[in-house]
């Protein structure tokens, strides 16, 4: 995944834009990108498909300003009527279902969104740094960057259940958070904070020495 992201920019290849879209000059396209008529794409949007990958933007799709869609390791399909807020980052392969709504500033990494699903703004879905197992069992492993480019659309991978996938991720994040809490240092800190009078002393010290926090930032 990382090596794909760091790959050199491919030369623009097959690029078909049908007439009738809202704007044709203020977003940027690289690779095999198909935008169907009636799609509204905001200014500064980047649509980039790596070699061997493609991006398909369906009819009536709305993509907010400054969004980035980067297909790698497979096809990135945005089905008809889906709405992506401003600043959305979509990396990898997957399908955003029809009439789905992705809140602004959301990051989607290698995952699929069901149709009609609503993602709240600022979400992070499908973070691969926690999903070693998921990457190992990826049905469509990322292709090397130097794979021969083909104008043929790559076959869609069988979409694994996106809801189950999201649930699995959430569980992993919770486990990671619990592990961080069980750190002995944090346990000692929590113990000290529970001592009667400690918070009072901290407040008092803060009043006497207002710049103490900055001085002892590496403390504890």
């Amino acid at each position, binding site marked *: 995944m990382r090596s794909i992201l760091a790959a050199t920019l491919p030369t623009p290849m097959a690029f078909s834009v049908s007439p009738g879209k809202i704007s044709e000059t203020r977003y940027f396209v690289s690779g095999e990108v198909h935008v169907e008529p009636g799609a509204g794409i905001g200014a500064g949007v980047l649509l980039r498909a790596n070699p061997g990958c493609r991006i398909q933007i369906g009819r009536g799709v709305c993509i907010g300003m400054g969004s980035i869609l980067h297909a790698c390791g497979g096809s990135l399909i945005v089905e008809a009527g889906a709405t992506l807020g401003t600043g959305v980052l979509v990396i990898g392969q997957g399908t955003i279902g029809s009439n789905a709504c992705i809140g602004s500033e959301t990051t989607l990494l290698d995952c699929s969104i069901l149709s009609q699903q609503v993602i709240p703004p600022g979400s992070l879905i499908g973070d691969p740094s926690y999903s070693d197992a998921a990457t190992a069992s990826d049905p469509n492993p990322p292709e090397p960057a130097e794979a021969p480019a083909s104008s043929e659309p790559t076959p869609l991978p069988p979409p694994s259940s996106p809801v189950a996938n999201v649930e699995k991720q959430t569980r992993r994040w919770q486990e990671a958070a619990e592990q961080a809490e069980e750190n002995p240092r944090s346990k*000692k800190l929590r113990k*000290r904070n*529970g*001592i*009667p*009078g*400690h918070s*009072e*002393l901290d407040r*008092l*010290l803060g009043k*006497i*020495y207002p710049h103490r926090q900055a001085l002892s930032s590496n403390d504890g």
Partner: protein
Amino acid sequence: MSTSLGLIQTRSFPVIVRIADAMTKSAGVMLIGFEKTSGGYCTAIVRGGIADVRIAIEEGIELARHFDQEELSSLVIPRPLPNLEVVLPISSKLSQLAQNRGYSRLSNLAVGLLETRGFPAMVGAADTMLKTADVQLAAYETIGDGLCTAIIRGTVANVAIAIDAGMYEAERIGELHAIAVIPRPLDELEQALPVASCFVAQPVSLPVAIPQVQEQEVQRSETAVERIPVYLEPPETP
């Protein structure tokens, strides 16, 4: 009239001192003292009018809950009978007796208390506190259940820094139990706290004997006057 009686009990000496400080500042109550039954149980005793005692005890309970004191108990008796006062250490005369014990050289200074479970941790923390800031170790107090409290005195900035440093040392050696800093304790609270004898200056007896000396001199002069005629009397010669 200091008729009503208020009691509040916690399981930590710094916490009960901090509660007593808040109680004496919240209403017009008189702090009689701390009753330390073993097992770590400490009780603060206040007397005053019923309204003052009720306000003070409510304030104390609120603060104790804030400190997460689980085994908290309190009592307000509007009018204890005289027999109770005679037998139990709840009489307001006790504090008056205690106030005549001498003048502490550490009065009008902030108080810091650091409680550990086990003596070595307290000694280590007290040593660190003395070496960290300009404070004096006024006394130490044990309340049973292995809980020892070091009591330091100094200016508030020195006390706060000393307690902060002592806390780390106590944690390193053993178990830290509670801490408290009282920036400006009232006189009653100061009197109720233990102070090592080396810090107590015995009251200097002012020259109250001067009138007595004068009286003696007057008496002497009177006797001298009386004697004069005796010596002046010439011997009779026939």
